């Protein structure tokens, strides 16, 4: 056998291998297309019932519900992910009806099992699904399964658990969220998002967290900071006295959080408390106080803001001028008659804005 023969043999083997790979890829593609076609064929009629369930009139909804409950496992699998994606986009009875169908299919138990899976992706999917299924009357097993994952070894799972817990409007849940977020600063945004969704039931826990933080740690700690931020976000006007009192004895970081929260809450009674920080040594605090007074607005804030139009720090003075513009006719009169450069700047920019 010559070298040429060997070369031909190798070329034929290579060609055959390539052919096999191509045939394999074609077969895989064909199989997937067939599976997709089968899935679409299964999905279309069931999805139509889901549409009817979520958009229909009461009698149509009843019929759709009856037809959806006994669907086969294959039909269920064809639409389950889409149905979960649809729930958060709906409101009111449409959302509740779809949740009810999903619960009837037993997906909650399956999701609880997934939260204990070895795969972190599956744990996240389980948590997401439990968050979607949760409601006012959620099964405590679901809540406890999600709470347990706040201490998961994987950050993505902890984060998904934190976001999912926003769907459980219970004070006890908020306590866990606050503790976890205080220990792990990178969960701050997710904590705020969840507490915002919990709403009113979170307020007593957050107030208590803020008060305790200032009482137990000189200047307050991370818990207090997060509680103050969340109180402003949730719109807890009942927390105004706690925030005002915490502001007086806190670190600069916590003081800033309280100032922002008081501005967001917009209670006119906070004008006196917010006038104090206008004289603070740190320009960031003075600027935040001026901005918050602007958010509160009204004539009460005008005298205090007028005093900082000539602040040494131009950003503070500008914040005061912008705040005065939001204080109604009284503030606007002060701005119009003030010779302070920032006042003239704000008046000019405002005039330009109204021309556009």
């Amino acid at each position: 056998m010559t070298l040429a023969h060997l070369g031909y043999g190798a070329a034929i083997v290579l060609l055959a291998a390539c052919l096999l790979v191509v045939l394999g890829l074609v077969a895989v593609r064909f199989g997937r297309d067939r599976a997709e076609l089968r899935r679409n064929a299964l999905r279309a009629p069931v999805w139509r019932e889901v549409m009817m369930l979520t958009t229909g009139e009461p009698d149509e909804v009843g019929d759709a519900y009856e037809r959806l409950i006994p669907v086969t496992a294959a039909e269920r699998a064809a639409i389950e992910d889409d149905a979960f994606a649809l729930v958060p986009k709906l409101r009111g009875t449409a959302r509740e009806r779809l949740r009810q169908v999903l619960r009837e299919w037993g997906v909650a138990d399956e999701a609880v099992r997934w939260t204990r899976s070895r795969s972190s992706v599956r744990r996240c999917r389980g948590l997401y699904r439990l968050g979607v299924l949760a409601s006012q009357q959620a099964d405590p097993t679901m809540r406890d399964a999600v709470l347990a994952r706040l201490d998961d070894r994987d950050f993505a799972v902890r984060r998904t658990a934190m976001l999912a817990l926003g769907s459980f409007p219970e004070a006890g849940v908020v306590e866990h969220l606050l503790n976890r977020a205080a220990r792990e600063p990178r969960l701050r945004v997710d904590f705020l998002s969840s507490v915002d969704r919990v709403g009113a039931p979170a307020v007593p826990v957050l107030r208590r967290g803020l008060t305790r933080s200032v009482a137990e740690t000189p200047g307050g700690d991370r818990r207090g900071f997060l509680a103050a931020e969340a109180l402003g976000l949730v719109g807890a006007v009942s927390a105004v006295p706690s925030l005002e009192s915490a502001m007086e004895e806190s670190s600069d970081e916590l003081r800033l959080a309280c100032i922002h929260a008081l501005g967001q809450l917009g209670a006119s009674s906070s004008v006196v408390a917010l006038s104090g920080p206008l004289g603070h040594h740190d320009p960031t605090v003075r600027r935040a106080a001026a901005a918050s007074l602007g958010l509160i607005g009204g004539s009460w804030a005008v005298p205090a803001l007028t005093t900082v139009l000539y602040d040494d720090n131009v950003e503070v003075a500008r914040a005061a001028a912008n705040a005065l513009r939001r204080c109604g006719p009284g503030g606007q009169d002060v701005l119009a008659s003030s010779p302070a450069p920032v006042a003239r700047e704000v008046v000019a920019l405002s005039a330009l804005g109204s021309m556009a």
Partner: protein
Amino acid sequence: MARILVADDDVDIRELVEFKLSTLGHDVVAVSDGAAAIDACQASRPDLAVLDVMMPGVSGLDAIRAIRADPALADLPVILLTARAQESDVETGFDSGADDYITKPFSPRELASRVQALLTRVR
């Protein structure tokens, strides 16, 4: 029966709105971005438009401005259906020329009622 344009980049929302309005007997044209919405308005002259605000390319607000700038479409009733729920967002929506504003998550039946009410008012 009316011809209604629906523009939303979220396929689920588009499908929901299209399904609900079709079952009420309306003729629905669905598109996925603002530019296509403007084109569809000029081509099919709908009786009402339901627009999302945050869409790729031309936003819903820009689409309304373009619609209002066209004399033939200036009176077209427009409903904004959007996830932007802040007070200032609603204000901006109405300032841009929207006739109604619905925030997501939404109730398809409520949307249908508002569509009916707006159609009745303009006819």
